[in-house]
């Protein structure tokens, strides 16, 4: 066993892990943060997406030891005050989900994009979301929700 220090949603944790354990396993099984999903578990579907130092990563293929001393943001970190975050609101308002299993991953990828680039082009949105699969909505609603955030921002400026 190794000890790893990870800051998750602005809370410091020290967790005992084996070197083969993934960040997804630690979040879900050791920290009970089950908002981050385990989907394909082969680095392909994006349901497990979290932010590592602000950048989107697949938590299923991130070894927990690589998160030592770093900041992890999960879907639970978006609702610190009990209210939905603006991305979650946009997804809800645009019905950008059906079964909802992929949604936390999509929202985290969307967050990484908008944090880095508040006014992305449609192409940039698609590029940012290419690593997230949805098998219900067909993507149109997800794209609408994401584009609406950009339009809202434009409306304000």
């Amino acid at each position: 066993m190794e000890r790893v220090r990870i800051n998750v949603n602005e809370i410091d944790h020290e967790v005992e892990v084996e070197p083969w354990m993934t960040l997804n396993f630690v979040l879900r099984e050791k920290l009970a943060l089950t908002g981050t999903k385990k989907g394909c578990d082969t680095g392909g579907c994006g349901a497990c997406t979290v932010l590592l130092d602000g950048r989107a990563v697949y938590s299923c293929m991130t070894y927990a030891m690589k998160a030592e001393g770093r900041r992890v943001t999960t879907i639970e970190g978006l609702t610190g005050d009990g209210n939905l975050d603006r991305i979650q609101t946009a997804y809800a308002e645009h019905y950008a989900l059906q079964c909802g299993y992929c949604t936390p991953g999509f929202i985290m990828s969307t967050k990484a994009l908008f944090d880095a680039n508040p006014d992305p082009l449609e192409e940039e949105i698609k590029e940012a979301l290419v690593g997230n699969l949805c098998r219900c909505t067909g993507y149109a609603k997800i794209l609408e929700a994401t584009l609406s955030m950009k339009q809202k921002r434009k409306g304000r400026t």
Partner: protein
Amino acid sequence: MSEFSPKHYFRPETASEASQTLARYKDRSIVIGGGTVIYELAQRGLLSDVEALVDLTRLSLDQVKDGEKFLSIGANVSLSYLQESAALREGRLACIGDALKEIRPIQVKNLATVGGAVSSCIPFFDLPVALASVGANVELNGPHAVRSVPILEFQRDFLQPDLREGEFVSAVLIPRQMASRASAFSKFALTGDDWATVNCACSLEIAKGIIREARIVFGAIASKPLLAERCGAALMNRRAEAAAIPKAIETLDGELGEPISDHRASSSYRKRVAKLLLQTTLERAFERGGG
């Protein structure tokens, strides 16, 4: 034991400590960069004998340095960081920028490192092909010396890097004069985030509109990136324009041999795609000029 279950995780403080650790565990150790390739290989049951992971995070190999002779890209530089690097701005080393754009998804690109992309020796990867087209060398840090090997020699075969006992990749070095070449990279993949069915990179030394040297490299054709020398020779002393391309394409029938045939594409399909990609890649490089 058939599962990936390393018992030890080392974060050496110095290059010498890293080499000693790798030498101590020999084939039972592996360097972990972003961990994405390790994950892929472990999933396929290929790393069941690994006992120790060696993480080089503390060796400061995460910089892109513009030196006198080389652009040095540290092994721990992530593919996203490299894509954003000033070294690739204003069209410099455009083939590398093209390749990085084609590597998806962002979730992998944010983790994956240059050292991992090179040392894993997976022939469907994009970055090694682009690097080979600009004559990159791989810098290897060993217990007794540092040596530098052309990437096409370093990648000996599928999953077989030229790594001696205790050695690890510390950087990729691109000769400075390559930065002024006209270059391009193209990829054909079955989906937006798949590995390449075929990819192609070229770098051209163009003087007054005439091609003086051409390096053409194909990936996913053979078990390692393939330098198409006859194809490059067919472009020599030709004007950098569309009329030069058919002769170069003709060479590929012989030079590509019998490309890989797998679940992505048959051998003959790959050859057809390679010809189309060469056309696209050269056209893009010609547009960029550089003469």
